[in-house]
């Protein structure tokens, strides 16, 4: 088949389709969104499989698990922190096992380009004791996804593919292979899938008993490779995932290329590691993310007679993403000559709300209303509106995780914060805001919740939102918020005074209020106009 230029995300999606995917699920989140975008476009053309956005990552994971139970192949993708949301079904899916191939694809964001942390999903694979693939390039992303379905069905376990931003959002050419068909419907066995203690104990023992075979699989994996050289045995390098590229990039500048172990399949391939470590005096471990291999290798006491270098030793930075430069220095090379600005300081240009954004009008009204209160706190959430942290708004004081605004406002209100205000978008509310609102409604907590209904998931590129429009209003009423304290405002400059007044009324109401600010995202409105 002809090569195509694909994002790393898209290479995974295409690999899944060609592996005989029956259904894919996800929740939007950078840098994973383009996996599902691609699946949805492809499914719209062929109608051959299901591809849909879920209300959150836990739901997405469980939907995929249902597909696997039915004997069919499922893919579930999310940004790294989305796997925290799905961690409950994820950890237990290692015990239920997979009936049809089940592949979970978290996309990590080292450097926190668009995220609140830079956690490393390989630790989740290690935690659940499942196989993990970590592609170093686009072709591998495609091949590994195909192979992940095979491994999942062979071992009867979910398999992880760990992506990172620089692969997810990099384009390169991929040469696809012939696709294969889907599985037939074949239900899972209840004694495997019903995790009562009696079954779960047996299943867990099964996973433990299977570990040695997984390590062997990893040692024999075509994606792991050991290249030993006798010319120089002082240094050997272990490089995983895209870190392998940064090592390769710098090799031409080394007089003698060192012995090199590439690790792109986990569990950690013990034999290969031993082969390298025994061969050299100093081992440099280069991995994108947290030092998983380095920590395992070093343990508490190190390796007798060997020097282990990496992130823990300070030879590579522990925060941020790796780069060709940081790896270059760790390899003992001098920086390349380059141009510089001679100390000239450049103004930073942080992201900001678009001109005319409805959130801006909501924030102006909120700031106006809050002038009369000196102890207000605005708990915010994950979405474009987090940008209300920056001038000229400087209105939000927190951003932690999906849905936290509502729960934190409730906690804060219960120990004396007033006005205690939550600001959350419609899709984030559907994701994780509804459950804390149910609680706040039952307790009639003295707080004010803003739901910014722009009818889309704006930050990640305008995916559909479930909790929007009329349904959103019925949801709020349905959890028991008093109807007279559900207020709808239209965030527009001309409504500034009127809206500030509504906000003040609801802050002064002793109990729970919900203010829904309804105006469509400008970017989405523009897109609709362009496509007619």
């Amino acid at each position, binding site marked *: 088949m002809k090569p195509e*230029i694909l994002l790393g995300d898209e290479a995974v999606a295409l690999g899944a389709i060609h592996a005989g995917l029956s259904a894919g699920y996800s929740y939007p989140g950078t840098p994973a969104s383009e996996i599902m975008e691609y699946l949805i476009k492809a499914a719209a053309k062929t109608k051959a499989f299901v591809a849909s956005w879920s209300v959150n990552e836990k739901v997405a994971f469980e939907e995929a698990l249902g597909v696997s139970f039915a004997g069919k192949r499922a893919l579930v993708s999310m940004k790294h922190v989305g796997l925290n949301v799905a961690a409950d079904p994820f950890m237990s899916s290692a015990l239920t096992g997979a009936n049809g191939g089940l592949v979970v694809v978290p996309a990590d964001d080292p450097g926190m380009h668009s995220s609140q942390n830079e956690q490393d999903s390989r630790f989740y694979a290690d935690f659940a004791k499942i196989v993990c693939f970590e592609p170093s390039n686009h072709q591998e992303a495609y091949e590994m996804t195909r192979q992940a379905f095979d491994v999942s069905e062979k071992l009867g376990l979910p398999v992880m593919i760990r992506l990172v931003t620089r692969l997810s959002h990099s384009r390169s050419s991929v040469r696809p292979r012939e696709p294969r068909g889907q599985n037939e419907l074949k239900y899972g066995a209840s004694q495997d899938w019903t995790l009562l203690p009696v079954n779960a104990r047996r299943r867990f023992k099964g996973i433990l008993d299977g570990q040695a075979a997984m390590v062997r699989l990893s040692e024999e994996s075509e994606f792991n490779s050991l290249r030993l050289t006798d010319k120089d045995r002082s240094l050997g390098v272990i490089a995983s995932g895209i870190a392998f590229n940064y090592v390769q990039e710098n090799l031409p500048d080394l007089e003698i290329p060192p012995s090199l172990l590439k690790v792109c399949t986990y569990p950690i391939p013990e034999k290969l590691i031993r082969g390298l470590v025994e061969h050299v005096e100093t081992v440099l471990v280069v991995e994108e993310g947290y030092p998983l291999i380095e920590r395992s290798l070093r343990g508490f006491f190190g390796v007798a007679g060997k020097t282990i270098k990496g992130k823990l030793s300070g030879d590579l930075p522990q925060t941020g993403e790796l780069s060709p430069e940081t790896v270059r220095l760790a390899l003992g090379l001098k920086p390349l000559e380059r141009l510089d600005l001679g100390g000239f300081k450049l103004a930073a240009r942080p992201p900001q709300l678009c001109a005319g954004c409805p959130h801006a009008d909501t924030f102006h009204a909120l700031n106006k209303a809050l002038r009369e209160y000196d102890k207000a706190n605005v708990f915010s959430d994950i979405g474009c509106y987090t940008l209300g942290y920056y001038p000229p708004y400087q209105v939000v004081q927190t951003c932690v995780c999906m849905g936290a605004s509502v729960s934190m406002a409730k906690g804060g209100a219960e120990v004396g914060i007033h006005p205690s205000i939550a600001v959350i978008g419609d899709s984030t509310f559907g994701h994780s805001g509804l459950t804390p609102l149910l609680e706040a409604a039952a307790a009639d907590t003295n707080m004010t919740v803003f739901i910014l209904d722009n009818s889309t998931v704006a930050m990640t590129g305008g995916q559909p939102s479930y909790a929007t429009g009329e349904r959103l209003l019925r949801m709020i009423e349905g959890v028991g918020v008093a109807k007279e304290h559900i207020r709808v405002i239209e965030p527009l400059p001309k409504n500034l005074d009127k809206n500030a007044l509504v906000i003040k009324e609801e802050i002064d109401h002793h109990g729970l209020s919900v203010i829904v600010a309804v105006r469509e995202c400008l970017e989405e409105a523009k897109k609709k106009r362009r496509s007619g």
Partner: protein
Amino acid sequence: MKQDIILAGVGGQGIISIAYVIASAALEEGLELKQAEVHGMSQRGGAVQSHLRISRERIWSDLIPRGEADLVLSVEPLEALRYIDYLRPDGMIISSRVPFINIRDYPDLETLLSKIREIPRHLIIDSEKLAKEAGSSRTQNMVLLGAAAGRLMVKEEGLPRYIKVLFERHGETIVASNLKAFALGQAVAAAADFVPASGGRTGRGGG
């Protein structure tokens, strides 16, 4: 032979479109390519950049090493300077002179332009004027692409085809103005007093 290009601008200025056109032409020529881009939060009016690497040989890193870029191509002067440390000492910079001011502490424009002029091989272009001449100020990215076209490793004549592909769903008028913007960029670069390119290079120059 290879070429490493940093594309720079502000979210929404269309640098991914520039990358698309060059990358598509490169694929057609059978070249290897990698193109790292920015999605998500930074796209909202923040600084964005794309690393575009084209080569006859295998490309390893998705990111261009600092000190390896042959060209910084920027739709905005402040953003052009943000990536100077990626440039080789003999690297070239092609930038628009039109500032995109959405921050309070935007520096003095003349200072920015003089900083760009300090780089031995530079070209500064009034992309807004040319884009308007082409029919739409939204075509500034294609003006810049046109200005760089003669210095790219891919064949210059292979590019317009993908400008058509890129804009065809928006109708003929938009395709025409983008093609014209590209041609105007080509013309202004051809007429410019510009230190000539040193030609392609093989592997690391050692510079």
